[in-house]
């Protein structure tokens, strides 16, 4: 029997710091590698009228950074962009912890947004203190149920959640399409297919900014928490961001400090042992997927109630899919979701400035993001490039085959 030489002792502060460094090292290097390859692509596709190739590369990344963090508005936009990523990334993470791979965050996000919007515009006359929570809960519950079904199918029939959640995505897209385009939730006065605007009392208010005039929002007047006409404070950051941070804390606490979390993690680490220890696989699969779905649903609800204020048929731009990348980047650590999501949001926010400065297509960011995903998931490649030893510890395994 092999004896391990460097065993972790009691988790002291110093050890935690070392562990944090070890955990963050590989994702950081993965990002670095992807950015270097991105630089190479820019090098070769640099337009000739913008200076030397090196200047273009530098300008591109400077533009990317300035676009994401260069001003108060830019930072706010990055955080706005990060909000759904935090929640949806958290959704994928929770499922990871239970050994489940939720690829259905996108569909759950749609269902959550649909339910929240519906509650947001159909009910009138409620005070905000009731209407807003009600709309949020509606989104979480609807998406939670939508997520719970694949969890139940996995536990009771063995149908693998990777396939079933994808099927549920497609079904959700069609369902939303039905309700918004040809169905009962369409705003008949609008030329483009969309729902009516939500009641002002159902909105997730922006923190600071001007009043949004009613003529642009279908008769509703959306009031930020602090009203100002200063254009430097016209920012879209809304209450949803705080909800996302709160969700991170709750999920961290749930996973690490409660019996529920212990069960979820045990089922994920060794389902046989969990069953032996008296835990119910079915209960935990359903619970985890419901929780995961609810988080993704909140992401959708946040977008609908905090940004769009209505729902269009082309609603999300792949937040649910990108959340898989974020969960992988954060190594399924709930706290690490926050920097991972902000990084992702920064790429999305900064790419416009990059294109404006250099003429490089902002779609390049998608390639960089794809590379980041690849290097993060295949951390062995990064370890191999940078010669880093594989650490011992919890390793997630999803490919348990399609049966039970």
């Amino acid at each position, binding site marked *: *029997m*092999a*004896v*391990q*030489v460097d*065993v*972790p*002792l*009691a*988790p002291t502060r110093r050890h935690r710091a070392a562990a944090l460094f070890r955990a963050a090292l590989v994702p950081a290097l993965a990002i670095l590698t992807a950015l270097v390859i991105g630089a190479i692509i820019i090098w070769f596709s640099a337009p000739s009228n913008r200076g030397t190739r090196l200047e273009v590369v530098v300008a591109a990344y400077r533009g990317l950074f300035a676009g994401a963090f260069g001003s108060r508005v830019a930072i706010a936009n990055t955080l706005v962009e990060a909000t759904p990523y935090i929640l949806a990334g958290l959704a994928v993470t929770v499922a990871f912890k239970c050994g489940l791979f939720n690829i259905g965050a996108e569909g759950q996000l749609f269902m959550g947004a649909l339910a929240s919007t519906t509650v947001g515009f159909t009910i009138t006359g409620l005070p905000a203190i009731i209407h807003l929570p009600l709309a949020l809960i509606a989104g979480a519950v609807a998406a939670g149920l939508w997520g719970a079904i694949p969890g139940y199918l996995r536990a009771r029939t063995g149908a693998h959640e990777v396939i079933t959640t994808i099927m549920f995505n497609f079904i959700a897209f069609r369902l939303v399409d039905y309700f918004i385009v040809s169905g009962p939730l369409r705003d008949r006065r609008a030329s483009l297919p969309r729902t009516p605007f939500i009641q002002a009392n159902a909105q997730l208010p922006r923190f600071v900014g001007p009043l949004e005039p009613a003529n642009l929002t279908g008769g509703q007047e959306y009031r930020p928490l602090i009203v100002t006409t200063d254009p430097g404070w016209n920012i879209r950051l809304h209450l949803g961001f705080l909800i996302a941070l709160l969700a991170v804390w709750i999920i961290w606490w749930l996973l690490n*400090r*409660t*019996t*529920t*979390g*212990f069960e979820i993690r*045990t089922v994920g*680490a*060794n389902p*046989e*042992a*969990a*069953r*032996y*220890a*008296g*835990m*119910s696989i079915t209960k935990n699969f359903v619970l985890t997927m419901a929780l995961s779905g609810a988080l993704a649903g909140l992401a959708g609800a946040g977008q609908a109630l905090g940004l769009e204020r209505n729902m269009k048929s082309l609603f999300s731009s792949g937040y649910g899919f990108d959340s898989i990348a974020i969960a992988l980047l954060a190594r399924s650590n709930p706290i690490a979701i926050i920097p991972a999501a902000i990084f992702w949001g920064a790429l999305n926010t900064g790419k416009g400035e990059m294109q404006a400065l250099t003429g490089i297509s902002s779609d390049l960011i998608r390639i960089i993001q794809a590379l980041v995903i690849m290097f993060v998931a295949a951390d062995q490649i990064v370890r191999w490039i940078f010669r880093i030893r594989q650490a*011992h*510890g*919890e*390793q997630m395994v999803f490919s348990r085959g399609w049966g039970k």
Partner: protein
Amino acid sequence: MSAQQPPALEVRNITKRFPGVLANDGISFTLEKGEIHAFLGENGAGKSTLMNILYGLYAPDEGEILINGRPVTIRNSADAIALGLGMVHQEYALVDTLTVAENIMLGTEIVSGPLLDERRANQRISQLSREYGLQVPPDALVQDLPVGVQQRVEILKALYRNAEILILDEPTAVLTPQEAEDLFRVMRSLVARGKSIIFISHKLKEVLSIADRITVLRRGRVVGTALPHESTDRTLAVMMVGRSVVLTVDKDESQPGEVVLDVSNLVVLDDRQQVAVDGVSLQVRAGEVLGIAGVQGNGQTELVDAINGLRPVVDGRVCIAEQETTTAAPRHISELGVAYIPEDRKGTGLVLAYPIADNLVLSTYYRSPFARGMRILANTIEEQARKLVKEFDIRTPSIWTTAGSLSGGNQQKIIVAREFSRPIKLLVASQPTRGIDVGSIEFIHRSIIQQRDDGVAVLVVSAELDEVLALSDRIAVMYKGKILAVLPQPEATRERLGLLMAGITDEHPSEEKVNGSTG
């Protein structure tokens, strides 16, 4: 053996290191043509490592190997096969879903044109079968065959590849004594035809009866070589363990009390939905140990799973402490005071990625004092861990060490500590000491008897006859899903149990009938 003929195999100074372990330390030996050379040693003595080196699965760090006097390098199993080595692994290297013929020819296929030629393959196989007395059905799927026949397929696989040297790794571990006899007959016919055999075992009696020479390994070193007619099981045991082995566990007469576990007419299916437990009835009383003997795979696993609520019961009843638990959830059963030491330590009993502290509360984490409401109380878990690690002598640098990085014996102690750390009425122990060191075995045996003496009803399932004999007050023999007999320990001789394990009954009219009264 003539002096000028070089040995079939010679090994010089083989050394193999694993991280933290010296698995083989300067091992040398020879294997003559037509010889059965036995390797004796405890689990972990380095036997399997040595054989894997011979078969090219590991590369030795030092030393050389000579075949027929010529030095060879064996980089992989293909090299080994080409050099005339054939190996029957402890866990058979067979593909369950392929036929016998397909398994035998795999890797050395007989083809006509682009397609497999099953007819010619079958011919070749039946020819080998006849020559060595190894009957197999070529068209049957391996998964449908009994273990003894699967072993013949393994041997045929080696012969099909023209093996001159056969390595049999613990071949009798899963056989009944009668099947083992059959195997010995085949082995004798093989050496009679000039093949040479390396026979690995930790069973002293077998080795004495079949081997021409015996090499004893301990902690990766050759302790000595003995000839069977000059040795006894006592002398070999001393060589093997380095001191006299405690073959028995000191214990007093049992004081049976109330019936704690009452199983009647139980029917349970296995993973393939076949009947595995076929109408089993048994009772275990407080303060006694009922041992279940039997060759592995005769329904013991399914029986124990069903008692613990981990496998659905098709028919029959299970009562624990006068409560029916036939359809109860595992948690409910455990709360009735049932402790369960599962047979698969790593897969079922532990979460290897968790620290020891968490593994010690794996089945009690939700209860006071480890949790209040849904909050987990880390401090009490830590206290509990420190206490149990000391009490059960779990050798670990820290309670935060992951269970996966401990030795098998220490892992098993975690499970025992956990299960014994709460008040229990019934203990179900399945293969409680498989593959662990002697020190841990003794510790666990003593702990089990201690529980018995404290009035716990104990059900022990073990494939090791010695273990069943040492621990039990009564012994039940399981065969093909049925309990053939329950014998009081003094009446249970190895011979009687051996016959029963092979399914042969009605020789002893004095047998206690299963469904009859037990007290």
